């Protein structure tokens, strides 16, 4: 009987923690969404004064990426609640990076950020889920575009390289030294502060936290990575053993 109550107690505690996490993530996302909505409002207001098409185009881009962010958040929640089953597959990371960079092109152009792909020649296939990984990389990209936009020559690098633990994939920049401490504090203040990553972003950085959840759903940890003279956010992926069996 005592064991039964203990188990129920643990379940309540863990569901309490889960609710806190969902609360923090939701507040963080909702705070982030103010920015694209504000951009849309101001672009539309401005277009009533000078009737230039690029204002309407910018409003459209802000809306599209806000919706994509919401979609990625919903995906992370559904995976966490086991409403979606995903099947591991073998794929090349370069495909994911190319797709993510292509998708991010319009947002990057709006902010004046250059996107580059850096793939080492011999990168082995990895095991995971391509769609979830793409959503995670894209979410990171949305935040980092904001972060680097105001630098002199803002560039984001979609890069993959080998490490002794596996294949690292992520988005990097030479403009900002992203530190592990920054990420750790951001995770601590998510949902509590409107700027949990204050030294990186003026917004709430929801893209980074949504990516965090998506990486976790793949049993991966999002981490700060250094590649040559670049600093970035990404994850270590497991190499696929399938081809070795052939």
């Amino acid at each position: 009987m005592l064991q039964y109550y203990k188990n129920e107690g643990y379940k309540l505690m863990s569901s309490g923690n889960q609710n806190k996490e969902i609360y923090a993530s939701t507040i963080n996302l909702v705070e982030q969404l103010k920015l694209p909505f504000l951009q849309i409002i101001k672009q539309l207001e401005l277009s009533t004064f000078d009737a230039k098409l690029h204002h309407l185009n910018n409003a459209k881009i802000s809306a599209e990426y806000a919706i994509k962010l919401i979609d990625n958040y919903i995906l992370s929640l559904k995976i966490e609640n086991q409403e979606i089953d995903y099947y591991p597959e073998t794929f090349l990371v370069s495909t994911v990076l190319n797709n993510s960079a292509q998708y991010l092109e319009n947002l990057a152009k709006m902010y004046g950020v250059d996107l580059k792909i850096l793939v080492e020649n011999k990168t082995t296939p990895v095991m995971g889920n391509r769609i979830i990984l793409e959503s995670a990389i894209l979410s990171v990209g949305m935040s980092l575009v904001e972060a680097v936009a105001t630098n002199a020559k803002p560039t984001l690098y979609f890069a993959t390289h080998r490490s002794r633990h596996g294949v690292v994939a992520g988005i990097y920049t030479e403009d900002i030294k992203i530190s592990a401490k920054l990420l750790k504090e951001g995770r601590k203040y998510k949902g509590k502060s409107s700027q949990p990553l204050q030294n990186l972003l003026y917004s709430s950085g929801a893209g980074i936290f949504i990516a965090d959840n998506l990486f976790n759903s793949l049993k991966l940890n999002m981490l700060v990575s250094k590649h040559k003279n670049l600093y970035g956010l990404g994850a270590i992926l497991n190499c696929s053993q399938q081809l070795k069996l052939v």
Partner: protein
Amino acid sequence: MQKILIVEPDKVLASTYSAFLSKNGFEVFCSHNAQDAMLKVDQYKPDLIILELRLISNSGVELLREIRSYPDLNYIKIIILSMVKINNLSNNWFRIKDDFDISEFLYKPETTLSELLNIVNQIVVKNVTS
């Protein structure tokens, strides 16, 4: 021509406000962070600063403190145009307003471009006549 410095971390919003105010007869400069803002204050000697409180690395309040620490910059009028709601600052608002001589506090989502222009015109005209 009256000079305005917009301190706004988001490039898209900064260019929107800048384009609008330029079309309405002001000479506008933009900064996206506190360090650059101080350099531009020194370089261009603006008549008015429109300031977002949520900046990268520093808060807008720190920038306010720095600007107001120079007596020869006291002539500059400051409008806060921020994503931070005034009732989130609660009692601190009155202290900030008095300590830093803020002309107006505007909540960005609820302030249209036209309203901003009206307020800017009122403040700038008042400044010129005084």
